[in-house]
């Protein structure tokens, strides 16, 4: 833990959380629609991992706003995408579940559970062939580890020693199904440990996430093959806005809230005297303003033009094939 890093962690996690809280409000007002999957509670995973894995390619599922922001995406273009505006990162065509920015090597928001894992594996193959060391980072939930695509991916990545970090956010629930009901155990690193180094970490601790991903990254860079990390975490909200999350007990929620990643970092940093208390208040104010600007930007942005409907189906050069 050093001061600069703690500050960055805090800033990004808090920015992420405030972004999510604002998105929730905008959803209730009707400015955002469709499926909105919030990351509240899980920020340490998104922020710690993206801070550590700062170079290679990132493939993610649909719970990805905070991950995208931690990767460097402007909250404005993320919010505009949620609003379905032309200025959104996917021009309003993708929405909450589909934030793509190849300039950040961020191939995000796949809405088919585990659908991105074989793709991440293929990209890792390309990077290996190209002699790129940074490799690929794939993030997914506990539920995804039951899919065929998951098992096929860990097998292929291990067989070919591909530079790929499998990062599982184990928040225990896939919508309303607890992992233990449909999997023989809840500690999911067990699924990968015969294939590659696999460890379980505290996903409510941003420093621990950072450290684990840093180690995995070094392993990748040494050309040793894939690496599996299971981060134990919790989402405070329902699966998406249409889910009230009632299937979880208050006690369980309280246990995880007492381990809240943002509060925990702040508490520890102050106790250790690494960061002066005033930093947090100032940062919170700055973030509040940033979020307001993002909402304003999204609200004032134009709707996509109607002819956008037919754009981006094919690359321009190919369009005459179909017309």
């Amino acid at each position, binding site marked *: 833990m050093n001061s600069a890093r703690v500050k960055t962690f805090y800033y990004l996690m808090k920015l992420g959380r405030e972004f999510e809280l604002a998105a929730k409000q905008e959803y209730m007002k009707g400015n955002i629609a469709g499926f909105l999957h919030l990351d509240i509670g899980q920020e340490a995973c998104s922020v710690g991992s993206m801070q550590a894995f700062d170079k290679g390619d990132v493939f993610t599922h649909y719970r990805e706003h905070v991950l995208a922001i931690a990767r460097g995406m402007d909250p404005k273009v993320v919010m505009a995408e949620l609003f379905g505006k032309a200025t959104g990162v996917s021009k*309003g065509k993708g929405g909450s579940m*589909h934030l793509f920015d190849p300039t950040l090597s961020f191939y995000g928001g796949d809405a088919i559970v*585990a659908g991105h894992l074989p793709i991440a594996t293929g990209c890792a193959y390309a990077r290996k062939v190209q002699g790129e060391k940074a490799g690929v980072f794939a993030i997914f939930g506990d539920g995804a580890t039951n899919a065929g695509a998951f098992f096929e991916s860990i097998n292929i990545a291990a067989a070919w020693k591909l530079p790929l970090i499998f990062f599982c956010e184990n928040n225990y629930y896939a919508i309303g*199904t607890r992992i233990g009901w449909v999997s023989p155990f809840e500690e999911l690193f067990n699924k990968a440990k015969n294939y590659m180094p696999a460890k379980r970490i505290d996903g409510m601790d941003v420093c621990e996430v950072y450290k684990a991903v840093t180690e995995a990254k070094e392993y990748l860079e040494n050309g040793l093959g894939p690496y599996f990390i299971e981060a134990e975490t919790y989402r405070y909200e329902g699966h998406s806005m249409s889910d009230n999350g009632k299937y979880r007990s208050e006690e369980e929620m309280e246990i995880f809230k007492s381990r809240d990643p943002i509060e925990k970092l702040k508490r520890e940093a102050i106790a250790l005297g690494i960061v002066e208390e005033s930093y947090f208040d100032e940062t919170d104010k700055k973030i509040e303003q940033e979020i307001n600007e993002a909402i304003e930007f999204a609200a004032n942005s134009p709707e996509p033009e109607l002819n956008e409907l037919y754009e981006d*189906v094919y690359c321009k050069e190919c369009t005459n094939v179909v017309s």
Partner: protein
Amino acid sequence: MLYREALNRAIDEAMAADESVVILGEDVGRYGGSYRVSEGLFAKYGAKRVIDTPIAELSIVGNAIGMAIGGLRPIAEIMTVNFSLLAMDQIVNHAAKFRYMSGGKMTIPLTVRMPGGVSRQLAAQHSESYETLYASIPGLIVLAASNATYAYHALKHAIFLNDPVIFLEHELLYPMEMEFEEKANFDPFKAEVVKEGDDLTILTYLKMRYDVLEAVPTIEKELGISVEVIDLNSLRPLDMKTISNSIKKTKRVVLVEEDHKTGGYGAEVIARITEELFYELDAPPLRIAGEDVPIPYNRTLELASIPTPDKIAAQIKLWGQNHGL
């Protein structure tokens, strides 16, 4: 009765009547189903018959096929038709073919339920209509339930059929309050004449039924005609008799579907009509369908990508005027 309640009642009654009926799928048990179709069933029938599965669609359907071979009558729920693509191998290569490949020795009493179509801003990976894929496979029965009465009766029928049935629902219909009618001798393979008329037959199914009915008064007024509306209900087999009777009377046909136009299910229906009823027609058939683009998130673009009552009315008016109506 709500549409989803009609489905729930059909499953409940089937489970009560026959111990071999089971339901399996993601979140169908303790959670009550992501669209609440299986609500209450877990408490009533227990974990052995209301089975929460992992997120593994290929296995949901594959396991269901095995259960069917083993003597159960499984209802497999796929959360959204897009995810059924992961189960397509089991549906197409296995469920649809075992009977034929075994010379009639195998029966697969399987029902696969799935909702599809464009809901509200769920974007491209959650908005497809894939009925055309399943309706093109010999060995499958494909039913499309647009209303509570049909949903209830047809689903019950499907569960007790000995052939694999793809049972299509629409996400926007679940919370809709609908009239409900108990029917004796219900035939799920029969199309429904929803509204009678003399000058034009509109064929449709699933949610588009409602968009068509909304457009009909405008069409009738603007063209000064009377319109007959038919809900196809069963996509495979297709009730050509009801279609043919109507077209022989009206001499004109329009098909409205939510699917993409190229290769959509309507292409098949119109091809058959052209083959079999060409000389009955006074005008070329019209297909009104979704655009050939993945479904966008933005609401305005989303609505532009599929037929709406306004677009249906406007297109039929223009077509009618160009073809002597």
